[in-house]
């Protein structure tokens, strides 16, 4: 695989050039924070950010997405027939994806592209997309990617990794999709012999800036019901207001709700992001709600990410350590604290303590 070294000017020119073949998304500062957006002509990504406020998941999996259209016009031939909307994804490239967010796509893929189910909307968008990552040269205090299956220079989920070295960038081609993007961008010029060791040095420096970690080694061996019945859930959930912030800013939260909206004699069937924090998420048509109380909903979110997913896929936790939920939770529920509590939970000991008190 190719390793190229380019300067900032070639980087920008290449991104601009690639727009002829791709719809290019990148981080842009909007008011106070950076978020991904479709870059207009001559608009360039702004790499002066630690991470975007929202993850790039909406590029592949929009918050609201129309899936079907229907007609209620009795005189029409296709009255009451659900017709799939045109679902063709043109080539997209997301430039400036942080390695933590990059790992979220293979994680989410296990849900949307499995032997049992293929979510054609997600898959088509995903397959049409080239992920151009940007290594993190320094971490935030809330970043714990190195204990969540990746790291500041992690490559999983990426087609290209960009590594900033002063005003220059190393361009590391990782896949064929990446090679095609490099070609479209016109980036060329082999990096010198020292490049690999320079990248390694930058990587080590970056990893040393990670101060946060979670312990996950014992999650898999825990008994589901013992964790489910653990005594700490009510206390940990006390501050929760059951908003959807953690879910919506999370790169790996994938749940959605299906809604029909009718306008006169025609209508659409769409899906919208949903959140297990909302009581409505599990509200049955009968009126019964199996997760009626807030601690049950808080427990669900963490059990899903840190236990059910772990057990089902045997591929680590459903969390990439980006820290968004920690930074943005309005009431400071901290997944690191919950994860460590779950990992170290000793049901026998907790039972003894309960008896003693």
């Amino acid at each position: 695989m190719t390793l190229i070294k380019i300067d900032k000017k070639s980087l920008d020119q290449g991104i601009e050039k690639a727009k002829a073949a791709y719809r290019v998304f990148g981080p842009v500062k909007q008011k106070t924070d950076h978020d991904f957006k479709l870059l207009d002509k001559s608009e360039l990504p702004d790499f002066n950010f630690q991470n975007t406020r929202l993850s790039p998941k909406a590029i592949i999996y929009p918050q609201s997405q129309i899936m079907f259209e229907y007609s209620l016009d009795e005189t029409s031939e296709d009255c009451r027939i659900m017709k799939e909307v045109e679902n063709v994804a043109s080539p997209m490239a997301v430039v400036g994806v942080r390695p933590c967010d990059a790992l979220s796509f293979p994680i989410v893929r296990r849900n949307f592209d499995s032997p049992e189910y293929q979510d054609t909307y997600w898959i088509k968008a995903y397959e049409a997309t080239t992920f151009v990552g940007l290594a993190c040269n320094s971490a935030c205090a809330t970043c714990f990617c190195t204990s969540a299956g990746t790291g500041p220079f992690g490559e999983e989920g990426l087609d290209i990794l960009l590594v900033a070295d002063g005003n220059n960038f190393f361009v590391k081609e990782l896949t064929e999709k990446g090679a095609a993007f490099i070609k479209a961008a016109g980036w060329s010029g082999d990096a010198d012999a020292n490049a690999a060791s320079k990248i390694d040095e930058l990587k080590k420096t970056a990893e040393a800036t990670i101060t946060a970690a979670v312990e996950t080694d014992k999650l898999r061996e825990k008994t589901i019901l013992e964790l489910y019945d653990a005594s700490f859930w009510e206390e940990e959930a006390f501050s929760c207001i059951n908003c959807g912030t953690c879910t919506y800013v999370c790169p790996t939260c994938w749940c959605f709700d299906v809604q029909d909206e009718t306008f006169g004699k025609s209508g659409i069937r769409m899906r919208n992001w949903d959140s297990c924090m909302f009581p409505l998420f599990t509200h049955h048509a009968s009126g019964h709600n199996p997760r009626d109380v807030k601690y049950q909903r808080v427990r669900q979110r963490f059990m899903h990410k840190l236990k059910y997913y772990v057990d089902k896929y045997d591929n680590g936790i459903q969390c990439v350590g980006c820290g968004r939920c920690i930074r943005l939770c309005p009431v400071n529920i901290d997944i690191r604290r919950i994860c460590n509590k779950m990992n170290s939970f000793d049901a026998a000991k907790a039972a003894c303590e309960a008896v003693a008190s």
Partner: protein
Amino acid sequence: MTDYTDKIKEIAKRVLDEGKVDMVIGFRKGTVPMMNQPHYATSAASVDELIWDSSCGLNLANYLTDKKGNIAIVAKGCDTRNIVTHVIENKIKREQLHIIGVPCTGMIDHHKINAMFDKEITKVEESGDQITISGNGFSETLPKKDLLAENCAVCTHRNPVEYDELVGDLVEEQTGVDQYASVKEVEAMSPEDKWNYFEDLLAPCIRCYACRNACPLCYCPTCFVDESRPQWVGKSQDPTDVRTFHLLRAYHCAGRCTDCGACERVCPMGIKIREFTKKLNKDCLELYGWEAGLSLDQRPPLDTYKADDPEDFIK
């Protein structure tokens, strides 16, 4: 205000030891700067985690809704006004509560402070009326008055209006502040400018409902946006539905909002949600001479009828 911490712990320990209350609701230090966590203590051990500083901006009255048992609650001026509103609206009984009143000098605005620095803030410390903000390679000390949340900057009810005991001497109330300067600016706009202004204001909304859920007033068993039989509001990012949510929620808070600022504080997208409620607060003040939550003995203007109620706005 950090010197209130010891007094809060002392009171909490006493009321728990005396068996006066089953729990004390307050704050514990957050794991992220400027984000303290609502926390409850039921024993001396958890009392030690209780703290107070200028990042206790969430409204703890929100944690009282329909609670059973006897509860002590740490409450600054706006929290006590929402406790009064809760009592008036039968969401809690005054007798259940032991209100630990906090004379407040305002809360700092984490949105504003984060936006002031390009680099990540890893530590925020306060000493008297000075706040020191630091991160990797920088440290800056600024007067707290320049960092206040907008609602705190124009607050005229810093002292608790209802309490059983205080954690410190009452503070001087602010006078001469123009509470409604931002509303007047919007009122002066042309309809087209207003439309654009609100469109821009709500554009970042992700419908997480943090604003609604952090608000002590929003305790409806089923919010109108969650009703499904019939469904009143669409669930998508359609701007009409997003606006419907915000406008109707604001109107539901008319004559009840204490301008505690919790909605703005919790918004992950930094939307200035008070622009809506503030206008209604201004109308209630101008039409009915009313500010919410100041007295247990007065009914709110919108749930009473008086023969001389203004009606000029009915066309």
